[in-house]
Each structure stands twice: as C-alpha cells, then as structure tokens.
C-alpha cells in the first residue's frame, strides 16, 4: 500500500533531478541570445505557473489576479534597491514576503466568494493594483522605474550581456516551486487543500478550516509569484505597470498550468515549454504580417489542447493510473 505511493514519490524525485540536470546543461551549447532568452522566459514561467498551481491547482481556487503579486514583487525588490540600497539578491526574499502577505488582505474578502465569483473578484483586485501603481508617483507612476547598472554582480543580480547567470537564477526559482509542490503533495496541508478543492462540506466535517486553508495556499502561491516578479524585474532592468501588473500577466501565469495540467507536478513546466515558445515563435514569424495573427494561432493552440486533452498535456505522459489524479 504505502509502497506504491513511495515508489511513485521516488520516481518523481528521480524525474525532478534528471529534468533539473538537463535544464542546467541545456543553455551551455547555445550561443544565440534570442534562444537563450526564450529558454529563460520559459523556465521563469514554468516556475510562476507552478506557484499559481499551488492555489489554483491543488487548492482549486482559480485566481486571475496573480499579476498583482508578480508586479508587486517586481516593485518591492526594485524599490528596496533604489531607495534603500538593499541588494536585489535579498530583495527577492523581501518580494516573496510582501507578495505573500499581500495575498492575505486580498484573500480575506475574496475567499468569501467561491467558484466563478472568486475568479471574477481576483480579476478586479488585479485591475485595482494596476491602476494604483499607474497613478502612484512614489513608485514611478506610468513612467515606471529603471534599474541602473552598477556592474556585474550576483548580489545585485546584474549581468551586462551574459544570459547564463539569469538562466541559473530562474532555474533555481522554478526548482524551488517544484520542490514546494512536491513536498505539499505529501503533506497535511496538501491533503487539506485537495480536500477543500474536492468537497468543502466533507472537508469541514473532518475538521479542516476551509478559510485558513485557502489563505495559506494563497500566501504561499502569492509569495512565490512575487519572487518570480522580482527576478523578472532584475532580468529586464525596467518595470512599469504595463509590463508587470497588466491583466494579461495574470492569464500568462495561469495558462501554462491549465494547459499542462493543474494540480500536477509536471503540468506547469510542460505547459510553459509549449506555450512560451509557441507565443514567441508565432509573434516573431507572424507578428508583422497583420495585427493579431500570432495571437490567433496562439489562441487556436489553446483551444485544440483544451478540446483534445482537457486534463492537460501532462496526461499524454505517465501511466493511465496517474491521469485521473489531474484536474
């Protein structure tokens, strides 16, 4: 009995190590900056999607406002650096803390709603965050903030032209989210969250506090998303509300998980590995040929996957037994 689960867990750890090693070696032979950039963005979004998966997948609370945590994370590390001199390598953790804590006052009213109503509420909260930052001079308002270059350093997380350090940074981030999801799957919290997702009444009757379970999932999910936002800000060197807080980021963060397979360890990575290159390639090949053709292709791909593989791309892999664990 226990053995089957233990074997599966061991297989997953082994898989995790192999994928981590492969992703660590992947950029070494690649000299082309465009491809390097594409891989970095893909891995970053795999991590973000896994962070979203903690709340949207395992706990079943579909948030369409994660751009808020992403953007706030970016602003926190950037402003702490510019105004207080805190090196961004530490700012990442501050971003984790602030975005994680921010998820609590957001969750407090929103978790009084459930299902679609919760999702709609998160859209609204995300929009409010965007508008606040757009009109807030202290954080640069609509002009945004530049991160001045002070020389290459891991403490500042700044590298002039080298992409490799950023690659390992996003890889460490994605690995941390994966490990968190892995640990959650076997933990008391993870079980409580899946119970909340499956059946609130039954979960309650077993003594699970629904509200605090959701809050804990939201905080962890928001925290990791904020950390991802801080890394992104450091990577691009400039943020404004449109580049980190706009509503489409919420969708971008959620989509890889949904497409790859929610409440799975590998869904977010697989989804990101398909979506990010598809989005990039369709934009570079079709973006100039008329407005929106790239988006049509991108949207078409999502429709096809949704129709053919409603449980997510991850269900193409793995054994039959594992499929039904999804969704």
């Amino acid at each position: 009995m226990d053995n089957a689960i233990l074997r599966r867990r061991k297989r997953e750890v082994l898989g995790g190590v192999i994928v981590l090693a492969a992703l660590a070696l992947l950029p070494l032979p690649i000299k082309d900056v465009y491809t390097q950039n594409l891989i970095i963005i893909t891995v970053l979004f795999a991590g973000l999607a896994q962070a979203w998966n903690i709340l949207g997948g395992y706990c079943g609370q579909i948030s369409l406002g994660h751009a808020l945590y992403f953007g706030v994370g970016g602003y926190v590390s950037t402003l702490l650096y510019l105004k207080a001199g805190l090196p961004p390598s530490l700012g990442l953790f501050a971003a984790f803390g602030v975005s994680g804590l921010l998820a609590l006052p957001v969750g407090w009213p929103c978790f009084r709603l459930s299902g679609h109503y919760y999702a709609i509420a998160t859209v609204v909260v995300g929009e409010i965050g965007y508008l606040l930052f757009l009109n807030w001079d202290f954080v640069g308002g609509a002009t945004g903030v530049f991160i001045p270059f002070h020389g290459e350093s891991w403490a500042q997380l700044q590298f002039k032209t080298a992409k490799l350090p950023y690659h390992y940074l996003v890889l460490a981030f994605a690995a941390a989210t994966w490990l968190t999801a892995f640990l959650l799957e076997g933990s008391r919290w993870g079980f409580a969250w899946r119970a909340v997702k499956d059946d609130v009444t039954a979960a309650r009757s077993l003594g699970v506090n629904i509200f605090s379970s959701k809050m804990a999932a939201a905080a962890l999910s928001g925290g990791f998303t904020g950390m991802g936002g801080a890394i992104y800000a450091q990577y691009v060197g400039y943020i404004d509300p449109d580049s980190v807080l706009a509503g489409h980021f919420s969708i971008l963060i959620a989509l890889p998980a949904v497409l790859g397979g929610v409440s799975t360890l590998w869904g977010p990575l697989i989804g990101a590995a398909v979506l990010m290159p598809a989005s990039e390639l369709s934009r570079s090949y079709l973006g100039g040929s008329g407005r929106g053709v790239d988006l049509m292709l991108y949207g078409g791909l999502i429709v096809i996957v949704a129709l053919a593989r409603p449980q997510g791309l991850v269900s193409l892999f793995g054994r039959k037994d594992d499929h039904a664990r999804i969704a």
Partner: protein
Amino acid sequence: MLTMQDVAASYRGLKALQGISLEVGRGEIVAVVGANGAGKSTLLKAIAGQVATEGTILFDGASLAGVPPHMIARRGVGLVPEGRKLFPRLTVEDNLRLGAYAKRGDPNRFAPLELVFQLFPRLAERLSQRAETLSGGEQQMLAIGRALMTQPRLLMLDEPSQGIMPKLVDDILAAVSRIRDLGVTVLLVEQRLVEALEIADRAYVLQTGRIVMQGAAKDIAADGAVRRAYLGM
C-alpha cells in the same frame, strides 16, 4: 449527549426546520425518518453548523451556537454526509488519513484504522485504489470509515443506504450497530424506515420541517398510521 431545543433553520429565509426539540443520549442509536424534503438532512447540517440556525443546540452540555463547522467536527461530532462526498481522486488510504486531519501531533491518530478495517475488511484490500473506482457500497463504507477516523463521540449518518444495493444496506446498518456497541453514539437519518428502525433505539418522525412523532423505534415501526401518513407505505 446532544440536546436540541426549539431549533429552527432556514435557507435564505425559507424555513426548512421549525420547533425541533430532540435528545440523543450517550450510547443510543437515534433514527430520524421521514419522506423526501422533510428536513432530515437539514437537521444534521444544523448540528454540524453548516446552516444558520436559531434555538439551542447543546453538545455535551456546551452550546454549538456560533461555533464554526470545522470546530464542531473537532469537538467530536462526526458526519457522514449525504451522497458520501469522498475525495474521488485520492486513494482510499488518503481519504482515511484525511479523517485524522484534526488530530495533528497525536501519535495515536491513525489508531482507528484498525477498527475501520475490522468493520469493513474490503477497504483494507483497496487501500491504494482511488476512491472514485470503488462501488457504491464500498464508497459508503469509506465515508463511514473516514468519519470514524475523526474519533467522533457522536456519529451522524445522512442516508447511508442511498444508491447502494439492498444486500449491502443490511451490511452497512449492521456495521452502524457495531459502531454503537463500540461506544459511539449514533444519529441516523434514513428514508428506509424499516431497516433504520430495526437497529435504532428511538426514533423521530419528521414531516415538512417539524417533528410529528417520537418514541421507541419499535413502537414507531409498529404504528400503522405513521407508515401510511408520513412514509407512504
């Protein structure tokens, strides 16, 4: 153990229960019977804190008013919900372990497993299967087992016979009887009058949200008027 005095419950203004006064003594099996829509499930939900109520509900002498549902569960009120409400994608074992959720840090929290397997040996054979792959009867066994894992002092069952084959109904009710013999008080809601009254000590007959008759189970079973008037038999 459980006392309800003049309890009313409503869904958004629609009264589902009115003037309910009910008593469950330690070690009893009390059955609540009645037709569809009589308010039987609402009665259990009211005790579990899942619907808004007025009136007094005392469990072991302490009021349950304003206590959130998960804390009522932790005080020792176990609920086997209508329609079982298992976690379909989790294994049988994980469903049972979730029953011990509230007993964090208690080294004996999985101790009731032995009892569950004694009552329902089939669950022991299906530990690593997903709950959704079980038959209806097995799912009901799992739902009862999961509730027993919370180590309840009062076990409430909502229509345990629903959707399972007749032969298994007897097995499950026999198990309920054994659970009581092990010291757990039982409040049983059932549409199947005859079977429920066979194992119960006392019974209440519910009609359109009110208690219309109460007494020893065998008296109610013998009362022809009850059957005809309220249970359509």
